[in-house]
């Protein structure tokens, strides 16, 4: 497999060093940038496979950098933030960030996020059959099987689950899920989402109270894990 390239845009030398050592040890090529300006130039010269973007850069707001990047750059961008401010995170995700990590984070978590973001960008969109452990989703026949037994889902439940599963490991915001499944006028009607997530968990999780597939991201959204 070819080595993937990661661009780290962070003004803190210690963080850059830590990320570079961690990523190089995991067989990645790493480029570093200390400012938004440097970062944008680096992306334009050699587009990396993935960007780790600190949201608090000295020269430009990370949100603006992200918007700017998204005008032409389509590979994953993972946001690094020092504060667990859900509003900020949701904003970054709505602006096209693939995922987020709040400092301090564990390197295990970092690598898991990077791997899933990269896997996603290479996933075959037209695959009809997706298997997630005990779950099998067949998009061609719109059926779900758990431990080889067919599960009855309502139309809305199916749409929601299919959306989550197609974006495996990716955090999807409440707004995004509501808009995609129910339509733009339901953007703020999170009570519907709560109802259907609870129903889905009852049907697909072994223990709906300790879900392993549909994970709650507090104040942000949901993440589907295989």
């Amino acid at each position, binding site marked *: 497999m070819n080595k993937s390239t990661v661009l780290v845009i962070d003004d803190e030398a210690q963080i850059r060093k830590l990320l570079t050592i961690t990523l190089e040890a995991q067989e990645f090529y790493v480029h570093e940038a200390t400012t938004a300006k440097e970062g944008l130039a680096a992306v334009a010269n050699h587009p990396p496979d993935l960007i780790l973007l600190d949201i608090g850069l000295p020269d430009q707001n990370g949100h603006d950098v992200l918007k700017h990047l998204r005008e032409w750059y389509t590979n994953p961008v993972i946001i690094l933030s020092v*504060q667990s401010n*859900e509003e900020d995170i949701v904003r970054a995700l709505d602006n096209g960030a693939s995922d987020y990590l709040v400092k301090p984070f564990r390197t295990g978590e970092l690598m898991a996020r990077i791997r899933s973001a990269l896997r996603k960008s290479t996933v075959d969109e037209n695959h009809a059959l997706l298997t997630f452990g005990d779950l099998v989703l067949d998009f061609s026949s719109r059926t779900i099987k758990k431990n080889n037994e067919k599960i009855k889902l309502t139309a809305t439940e199916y749409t929601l689950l299919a959306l989550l599963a197609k974006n495996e490991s990716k955090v999807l915001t409440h707004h995004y899920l509501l808009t995609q499944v129910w339509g733009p006028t339901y953007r703020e009607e999170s*009570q519907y989402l*709560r109802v259907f997530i*609870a129903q889905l968990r009852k049907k697909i999780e072994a223990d709906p*109270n300790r879900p392993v597939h549909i994970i*709650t991201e*507090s*104040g942000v959204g949901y993440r589907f894990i295989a």
Partner: protein
Amino acid sequence: MIHSKTAMNRLFKEVPIRQQYFISLGAVLCVILLSLLIHEVVGYRAIAFFLLVTISLLSLFLDILPLVLAAVLSALLWNFIFIPPRFTFSIGTAEDQVLLLMYFIIVLIHAVLTAKIRQAQQEVRKREERSRDIKFYNTLLNSLSHELRTPITTIMGATDNLLALGNNLSETNKYELLNEINIASIRLNRQVENLLGVSRLESGAFKIRKDWVDVRELIYTTLGQFEPMFSNHSVTVSASESLPFFKLDFALMEQVLFNLINNAIQHTSEGTSILITADCVDEKLMIAISDTGKGFSEKEIDRVFDKFYRAHASRPGGTGLGLSIVRGFIEAHGGTITLRNLPLSGAEFTIILPTELTYLNNLKHE
């Protein structure tokens, strides 16, 4: 006694200055009007004493300028309306002239003295506040220096050893040092998290983002954070699936529940049971967290939510901020939290949150 006095001061201090002028005007005019009705019975000299009493009462809570206004106005009106010859400013007898002068002087002395007393009281209060602040910051600094410096010392010491003696250390010792660094940084992070929580609350720039919350999801998500730590405690959740959704700030409530459960785990011995109950009581959300530990001493119950308060028998490794953050976040939701000891054993924290709710989840959904 002292308490009620300061409470009164605080109450009166809040009267805005413009209102004070109205009060002083109104009071003097009222007494003059009443006096018109009775001056024939009691005589015009008694009126001076009515006015004197009125101004004495006013001086309890008015500033000096409104008092001077009352003094001048009452002297003029008394003279004009009551001292013969009536309805002139001239005064018939030398006795009355002296009386009016004395009246005016007494009222002014009264005003000045009360103002001075009030000023002195204010200074005392300021001094008290300052010494309270100093005590607060001393506690903060002591607690912080200990809680932050201990892990930092560990990290610096361990890395010194690894850097200087790297090759001479056995693999076991290296591993142990690294593990110590790990534990110290987790501890450091938890303290910083708590300090950020407190400063968020104190900054005032803190806002809550309410959204529909499935309380069962909230509880189980919080419990998910503890997964590896539960080996020594048994945790039970009692929350009906027909519980309505409530409008809450999910992330804040998660931190509230985390701190309360963490508190129960930290302060009870192994094998203790923890019960988390959620219910809808009078259209409000009720969450109770109880344990079967030793409970709190009566003396402590009132103080546990105070900043930096730590139970006497508690283990090292806390700043006493966790429960004060809990109370702050609950109050930000307009709710209350109370603590009581249970009849047999253990303690129970009860949260009551008045907020919007919906029974949408109990309808049939296709």
